[in-house]
């Protein structure tokens, strides 16, 4: 299996969600190295799959798995057997001495591509978007490390109208934290305001609750300004002060 075929399978030629699949990780695939490390054992407990699947019952639902990388991929691939289309949204690069270790995620990309049935659901299959909740794990990464933290921008996710056009009326964010990370929260707010039913599924307790609007934006901006550590991209993709990041969980 070549890195090209791995990418082709995950992107899915002509697939209606392929435009949203993020590409940087495929460029970091070293198949030979991954094959040497391969343990081929990636279990996900059936109860977890059933719980998440149940949250999506009743109406056509898009799932957003914001869990630690390998957990998100494993669950996403397992959900593919329940009729979902895995969409890789991890917009991180991977290099030696990286701050967020992507080794397991890369291995799962290769492993996942072997389960071709995971990518053969009908075109109208609802998507399961795969994120990595470690993306903002350290506000001050270790000196000398390759900083591969990342942020999900609103423009990275399908818009409300795209989801609605495809018959999706509910979005369930599956996570281990009490509330979505700041960047994903911005996406959730947009979905909620756009008329979608947004729910938050707690992975640890297996409970589902409606997503609630966060505190007012001006107050958050003020608090963020107090702790700004340096320049980076703003939430909307422009240059400016570093975006808010919370510590890791899960």
């Amino acid at each position, binding site marked *: 299996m070549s890195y090209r075929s791995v990418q082709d399978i995950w992107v899915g030629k002509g697939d209606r969600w392929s435009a949203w699949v993020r590409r940087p990780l495929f460029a970091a695939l070293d198949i030979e190295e991954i094959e040497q490390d391969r343990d081929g054992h990636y279990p996900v407990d059936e109860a977890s799959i059933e719980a998440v699947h149940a949250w999506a019952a009743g109406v056509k639902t898009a799932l957003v798995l914001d869990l630690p990388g390998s957990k998100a991929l494993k669950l996403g691939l397992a959900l593919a057997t329940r009729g979902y289309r895995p969409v890789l949204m991890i917009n991180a690069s991977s290099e030696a001495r990286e701050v967020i270790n992507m080794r397991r995620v890369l291995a799962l990309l290769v492993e996942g591509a072997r389960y071709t049935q995971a990518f053969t659901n009908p075109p109208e299959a609802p998507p399961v978007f795969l994120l990595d909740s470690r993306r903002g794990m350290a506000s001050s990464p270790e*000196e*000398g490390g390759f900083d591969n933290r990342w942020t999900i921008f609103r423009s990275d996710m399908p818009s409300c109208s795209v989801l609605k056009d495809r018959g999706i009326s509910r979005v369930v964010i599956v996570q281990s934290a009490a509330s979505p990370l700041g960047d994903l929260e911005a996406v959730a707010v947009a979905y909620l305001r756009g008329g979608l039913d947004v729910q938050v599924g707690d992975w640890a307790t297996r409970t589902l609750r409606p997503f609630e609007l966060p505190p007012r934006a001006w107050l958050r901006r003020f608090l963020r300004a107090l702790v700004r550590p*340096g320049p980076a991209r703003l939430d909307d993709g422009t240059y400016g002060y570093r975006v808010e990041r919370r510590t890791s969980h899960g």
Partner: protein
Amino acid sequence: MLDGLTCGAPLSVAQFSELKERAVREAFKWNVSDGGVDTLLDFPLLLTRALWRMLSERAVLLAREAEAAEQELLERPVLRSLLGVPLALQRALGRTRSAPGLRYSRFDFHPTQSGEFVITEGNLDAAGGWNEAGGVTSLFAEHYPDAEPVGDPAGALAAALARRIGPHGVVGIMHLTHYVDDHQVARALAHAFRKAGLDSVHFDPSQLRNAGARAAALIGDDVRPLDAIFRFFPADWSCRLVASGRWFESAARPGTLWSNPLATILTQSKRFPLVWGRLATPLPTWSRLLPETRDPLLVRRNGWVLKPAFGHEGFDVAVPEAMERRRLDRLWRRARLAPWAWAAQRNFGPLALATPSGFRYPCIGVYVVDGQPAGAYARLAERPLIDENALGAAVLVQS
């Protein structure tokens, strides 16, 4: 209609789809779509050779004049203070002059309703578009046998660096590594550097250190000395780094070549034209091609475009035809309160081009590397404002 500028026929759906996949793999253009929408157009802009010659000659003159003005500004702190450059950076510029520089720039030419081309600024400090102007353009050229690329800026930069630091030299590519849109540029450049026999290191600005007479990058526990640094990080941001004092100290090491040197921030400022009248350096090409620019306190709003002195990707540029009144008011209010950070530029009446996708406002970015024209790529926008919503297009010259 402009002489010498047309659009190529669009690629078929299958051809374009295949080209995008190759762009991802071969040109490191990972963001071929954004929000489910293509970031590239499916047709190139075609220039006659005469038009390319004119634009590239002008770009070279602009780069030459800017470098001369930059040298004069370095000697004149009072004028320098009018450009909106952060104070800490202004102070550091004197020290960092000891580091040698290799310059690259990109000038964005906009066609006007009067049939001319103007520029609205010079991208002299840190410019993007390397992947599109290099690898992506070559992929388009395969489909248009009567046209060819005008160059490969990354290849030209790699060759220039190899000439200056010698084969097997180590180039540090400084960029925000956690932002993949920037990292894809670093990867494309590393590929070009490798082809030129150079070694490269990716590092974040916060990893800059020094090693004797050279600047260095902290990689893991190793401090790796660098023969050259490609800075894909706007100089005005350096003041916001946590240890900016130490950073400037490293940037002043005389044994490392900088591309670009920090002093290019002086001519990058949108307020650069406000000091022309007091400079001894002649700037005939700039004067001819850049629309009139004034301090925002000295103009009425009608007929003027407002720009931050150090904006990026069209962010916060106030163009009346391209934004709602409320946002326009807010930007002008900010400019009146802090005029030293803004410039007002006369609206030059951009021309929309008939393209296969409808009427679009084009701008053609021409690269100059080490004093020579090195390539081009274009962006086309639905509104008369080239910002992050503009789509990229390959630029080919008709043979």
